[in-house]
């Protein structure tokens, strides 16, 4: 009886969680858009932001979460940055000022039963007329409510990824050196 119950619980748990899932689509941070608008920087182009295969799969209690953008979290960050600059009317595909980058860390820890954490960092490089004018690593940390129950903890962790990327871009837009080179 106990064995059947255990097997059933495990089987149902598997039904309710997935082997692999996608991170949510990026949600533009209105705060980030307003902040970059207020900074009165010049229009920029966003180039490629890369990430390696190891960073492109985030493990959430055994389930892997992949990026919905070309299965690359670098591409996810690139699109997020483009979306925010576009809404601020600061994105130009022909600008000679180009932002590129490389994700260095990208992880969500949902092993805790009451709180989960997310950490991400990326090296951002700004070039103007092919000359590097900014080269800096920007990091972000994010916490969210978690649970002992996987069916609650995993969706919460999945949803938290957007907030982590919003925070990473917020930290980039708050970097005074970054702002000053975009003004120049």
């Amino acid at each position, binding site marked *: *009886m106990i064995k*059947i*119950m255990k*097997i*059933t*619980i495990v089987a*149902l*748990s598997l*039904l*309710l969680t*997935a082997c*692999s*899932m*996608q991170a*949510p*689509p*990026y*949600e*533009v*941070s*209105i705060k980030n*858009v307003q902040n970059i608008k207020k900074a009165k920087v010049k229009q920029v182009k966003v180039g490629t932001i890369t990430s390696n295969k190891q960073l492109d799969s985030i493990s959430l209690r055994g389930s892997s979460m992949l990026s*919905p953008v070309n299965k690359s979290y670098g591409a996810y960050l690139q699109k997020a940055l483009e*979306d925010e600059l*576009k*809404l601020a*009317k600061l994105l130009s595909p022909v600008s000679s000022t180009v932002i590129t980058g490389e994700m260095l860390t990208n992880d969500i820890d949902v092993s805790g039963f009451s709180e989960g954490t997310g950490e991400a960092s990326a090296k951002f490089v700004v070039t103007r007329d092919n000359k590097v004018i900014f080269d800096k690593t920007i990091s972000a940390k994010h916490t969210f409510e978690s649970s002992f*129950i996987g*069916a*609650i903890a995993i*969706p*919460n962790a*999945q*949803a938290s990824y*957007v907030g982590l990327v919003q925070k990473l871009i917020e930290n980039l837009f708050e970097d005074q050196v970054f702002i000053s080179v975009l003004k120049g």
Partner: protein
Amino acid sequence: MNIFKSLAIITAIAALSGCAHQIQLNPNTDSFVSSDKIINTTVGYHISDEDRKKIVTTDGGGGDDVSYSPYKDTESILFTVLSNKFEDVYLVKNLDDNAFIKENEIKLIFIPEIITQSSSSSAFTWPPTKFVIDLTVKAVNSSGDLVWEKQIIKTGEAEYDEFKEDFSLSARRAAEQVFLELAKDIEQEVSLLN
């Protein structure tokens, strides 16, 4: 043995159910594009603090519920729709703040009202297979007069094979359809708004 199996399944479902699972409504934004004719006007939108904090719980599958924040989750896409058509967009925290409205030369303020429903055809998985959004958007001018009003109702659907990668999929699909329709209505009826 069949009785034992049935009991085991019921126990397992009971152990895993009775809770509200968090989902989000924010849609994929790939289809939301900037208008060819951006209106050189500043507009605002108003979502009260009470609405932004609101958590709504509706039905999921297997006896479970899902919970979400309809206004917080869709604020970004409302801002996107307005930014794609108007030169500048502000959050108007207080509709009576005439000084803020005047200072920023806000000509129109869009006010959303969102009603949602969800359900599932599955007894074993909690994510909703059907999600309905009933969105009413009112636009008032800087004097507070109602100048435009639109109601849009759309349904998003997702089956297990689709939502196993994204538990919020039916809700996101409903939100995508409803806000694409809003963008279309604003594009077509913008003359009425001027």
